[in-house]
């Protein structure tokens, strides 16, 4: 049960965005995916992108409260990466032959579907963030992503007091929400 417990710990760490857990999983599995991609017409950059996207899928799953992995982390990452790479190959029509699978795989279609939906929302938010421009973007990210308080933000962005910063934050937030919801309703 030693390995299983270790994996549970790692997944918990992953869900909490802990660097040590990320690094451990990265170290254990990267070369496997690297081989898969590079031997199937991919580049080093493709390998990195696919592996990191698979990590995000795992992260999204690990954050679910009722999450339990029915297979080894390695098998899971391999299965997801393989699917992601197949999809990319199909999109690019770069290669017709199927990607051979030397490793055991598990069905991941459901997880992929939920990942796709979440990723779509992420992309919409990133696009909206890109559109509001500076200093709005940094200001909102400081508050909502990095969880800084208004005092720190006022100091950092050079506002004379926290109220001015709040005012500015409110204006930025309204613009962001408008952009986000417009896209979100269009996209879904």
């Amino acid at each position, binding site marked *: 049960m030693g390995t299983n417990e270790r994996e549970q710990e790692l997944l918990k760490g992953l869900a909490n*965005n802990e*660097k040590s857990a*990320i*690094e451990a999983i*990265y*170290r254990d599995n*990267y*070369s496997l995916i*690297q*081989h898969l991609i*590079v031997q199937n*017409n991919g*580049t*080093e950059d493709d390998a*990195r992108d696919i592996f*990191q996207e698979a*990590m*995000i899928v795992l*992260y999204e799953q690990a*954050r679910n409260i009722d999450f339990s992995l029915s297979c080894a982390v390695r098998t899971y990452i391999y299965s997801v990466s393989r699917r992601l790479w197949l999809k990319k190959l199909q999109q690019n029509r*770069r*290669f017709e032959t199927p990607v051979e699978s030397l490793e055991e795989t598990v069905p991941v279609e459901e997880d992929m579907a939920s990942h796709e939906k*979440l990723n779509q*929302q*992420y992309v919409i*938010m*990133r696009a909206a*963030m890109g559109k509001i421009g500076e200093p709005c973007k940094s200001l909102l*990210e400081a508050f*909502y*992503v*990095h969880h800084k308080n208004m005092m720190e933000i006022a100091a950092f962005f050079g506002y004379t007091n926290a109220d001015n910063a*709040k*005012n500015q934050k*409110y204006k930025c*937030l309204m613009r962001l*929400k408008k952009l*986000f*919801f417009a896209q979100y309703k269009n996209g879904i």
Partner: protein
Amino acid sequence: MDQILLLEAAERYLRGEMGEVERLAFEEMRKNNPEVDQMVVEHHFFLDEMDRYGDVKRFKANLYDTHHTLQESGDIKELSPHGTGKIAYLWNRYRRTIAVAASIAGLTALLISGLTIMISPKAPIQDIEALKRQVNILEKRTNTQDLQINDVRKKIEPGTNIKFGGTSFMVDPKGYLVTSAHVVKGASRVFVQNSRGEDFKAILVHADESKDLAILKIEDEDFRSSASLPYGIGKSSTDLAEPVFTLGYPKDEIVYGEGYMSAKTGMKGDTMAYQISISANPGNSGGPILNRKGEVIGILNARQTTAEGVVFAVKSQHITQMIDSVKKKDSAQQIKVSQFSSIKGMDRVQQVKKIQDHIYMVKVVLK
């Protein structure tokens, strides 16, 4: 209430940062004010999205850092294929690009050589001489053609009793024509003339007066047979009101006429014929009736003198039947009839252009 303060309150409420009293007051306000409630619901969703956006963004940053760290510590090495493996790898990766590049290079080379040939001003003297010879050859050919034209004129001696019988059309490009039997009735000799005005000698192969059909064969050394006919001899049945057209020689020139199927039987219920509404004159006898697909559906043979524009056509099935029976009787007559039209779907002008070379005027020298 000030919107900024309200939003701030909603954020504190959603994050659970409010004290008990404040929270209850806020919930009370939500209950009483649906607008506020809606705003809180919406903002809740938005904050969730923001949180997830932030989490994924931070996670991505961590992934990126980790990759970098592991690369520096040597835990991640680039897989660089060596030797032949590398070549195969590069080939696999770039063969599409190579194919495109190669075809562009090929096309460019062709284009340049084409341009060079086009632009290069001086042709070698030998070529010029060769051209001169060709001009001489052409001149000779024209002379012989002139002689031949004189021959043709002589084919029908002036003063012979010629009856401009009617029209015929090719059914086999080897020189077999079909016309109406009454057109060639009592003929001692038959000539046919194409749309360009050239005369050819023809013989009567077979005549069936009961069906009013006849087969002619061009037997003339000047006749050049074509590879195939644009139209076919139709076997399918036709429908009332179907538009039809004909080509014929009511005068010394080919004439086009358009009409429609008006009855599926001929005069007095004759099942061998169709009744067609089309303007036709005596010279049109023996001309083909074609449908819009370019299939011969009948052969024009008579018109009702009491009514204008009512003509009768023998059904095309009888042409095929007659040809079959002729082939059976006389194995020397290898007549091949095509059912298929190659002008299906073309516009009418194009169809007629293709057909007219195969429609011949029948001239008859009476006994």
